[in-house]
């Protein structure tokens, strides 16, 4: 039995509109004001707003609380949930609580390893014990169980289903590449309704992976939203190419930003071109656009890329 779910994101996809999701990172603070300011910058642009869950294993305001705060401001959250910090008991409890608060989109992720935080500028908690009781695919199946089977992972019934629109992440160009489409297939088999991808810069390589997914019928079962991260400099692109697993940046793109007189403006142009290019790929149903620590650029980019709500059908 499939429990009906209604979210703005789900409806946009169901109606065949080109979907747009953006991202809001909760603050490292109990003060909701920075979150409200970010939300005000990008309100009204997208169908959903990803709220990250202690990304890079750095402690921030909880994804549930931050999601509720932006929901109250009129933005529809996509609550991210990672498997690093909670076991299946805590996650299901939080999912029921999230549902009670009116949160309906949830994105299931493995989560950045806590050791990764030590590599950044912040100290993080590299000495923390991680959980990984279940993995992201098992989390997807667990959420689906709460929604469609009215049961917890352990088998106990829940009084009424929790209507979640279930998301998953996909790294189409990750290593080992042959397996990446199969891993997507597993996520969709487990219950993913939509999929947001790792940042795409190599459009032909991405299109080839999406084509494989289409050939397997996966793009009919779940909506793929191509991830786009606004590049701001050649240095940023080359860093991502070298250091971020699963991100492939063509050398000519790095060169283009290097030669640009105004790399920031060129980065916006590149972003617009990337969005237009992925929009042409059959099976791609939207984009997940990120302007990390530069959210103020988003309204302009969304407009230039033809992603304003009135332009998306």
């Amino acid at each position: 039995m499939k429990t009906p779910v209604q979210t703005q994101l789900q409806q946009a996809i169901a109606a065949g509109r080109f979907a747009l999701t953006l991202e809001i990172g909760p603050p490292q603070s109990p003060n909701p004001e920075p979150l409200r300011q970010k939300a005000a910058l990008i309100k009204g642009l997208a169908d959903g707003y990803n709220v990250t869950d202690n990304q890079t294993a750095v402690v921030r305001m909880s994804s549930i609380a931050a999601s509720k705060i932006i929901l109250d401001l009129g933005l529809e959250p996509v609550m991210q949930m990672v498997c690093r910090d909670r076991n299946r008991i805590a996650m299901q409890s939080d999912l029921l609580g999230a549902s009670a608060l009116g949160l309906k989109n949830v994105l299931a992720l493995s989560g950045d390893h806590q050791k990764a935080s030590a590599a950044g500028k912040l100290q993080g908690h590299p000495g923390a014990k991680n959980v990984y009781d279940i993995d992201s695919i098992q989390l997807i199946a667990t959420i689906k169980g709460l929604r469609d089977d009215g049961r917890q992972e352990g088998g106990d019934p829940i009084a009424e289903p929790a209507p979640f629109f279930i998301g998953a992440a996909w790294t189409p160009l990750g290593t080992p590449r042959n397996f990446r489409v199969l891993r997507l297939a597993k996520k969709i088999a487990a219950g993913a309704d939509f999929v947001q991808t790792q940042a795409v810069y190599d459009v032909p390589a991405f299109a080839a992976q999406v084509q494989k997914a289409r050939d397997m019928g996966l793009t009919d079962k779940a909506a793929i939203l191509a991830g786009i991260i606004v590049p701001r400099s050649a240095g940023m692109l080359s860093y991502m190419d070298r250091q971020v697993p699963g991100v492939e940046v063509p050398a000519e793109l790095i060169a283009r930003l290097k030669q640009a007189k105004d790399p920031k403006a060129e980065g916006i142009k590149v972003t617009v071109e990337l969005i237009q290019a992925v929009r042409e790929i059959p099976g791609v149903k939207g984009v997940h656009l990120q302007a990390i620590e530069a959210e103020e650029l988003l309204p302009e980019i969304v407009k230039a890329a033809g992603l304003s709500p009135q332009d998306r059908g």
Partner: protein
Amino acid sequence: MIVAEWKPIPELLASLKGHKNVLLVGCATCVAECAAGGEREVLTLAPVLKMGLKDQGQEVNIITRTLERQCEPEFVEELSEIAPQVDAIMSIACGIGMQLVAERFIDLPLYPGVNTTSLAIREQAGLWTARCAACGDCMLGETFGLCPVARCAKSLMNGPCGGTRKDGKCEVDENTECIWRLIVERAEAKGRLEDLVKVRPSKNWSNSGHGGPKRMLREDLR
């Protein structure tokens, strides 16, 4: 084998503060194989401790012993003659051996000289890498003989996360293979990639420490 590694020498010296006669006891089994707690390490560590404490103005007499297996009561019993002559024991066996010694000589303080870290193999000379997490629910038959519980940084059950580096290493450590990359390669080599497509359901962790301390009872052997 059970793998252990020396604790930092300053930590060892601090733990022996105030003691005059110390029994340093090793084990000739696993910890000898991983060069942490065998006879050679006992004989190396004893003078290091003695000199280190002397530098701090503390004279200490260190008696050394290496048992065949510190996790077997019969071997631990070999210490019963020497134990009355000491005021502390430092063990450089694994945590199992240490506890047996502590239990047998309950009046003596027992200090750990090593940290027990893993169930591992000697992969190369001087390099030990984890192989088993003693999870109590072995899935090696599904993963082509490679364990993702012990060898994936996130113990993932259904394939690699997005953190596999281009060269196939794990994002957590540039020198560690992404075990799922190796599992996928083995599956491909056998033409059985499809075997990895089935979603593996949530694992039952209750047959490991998560179900409470493990207690295996075999009535037929009692």
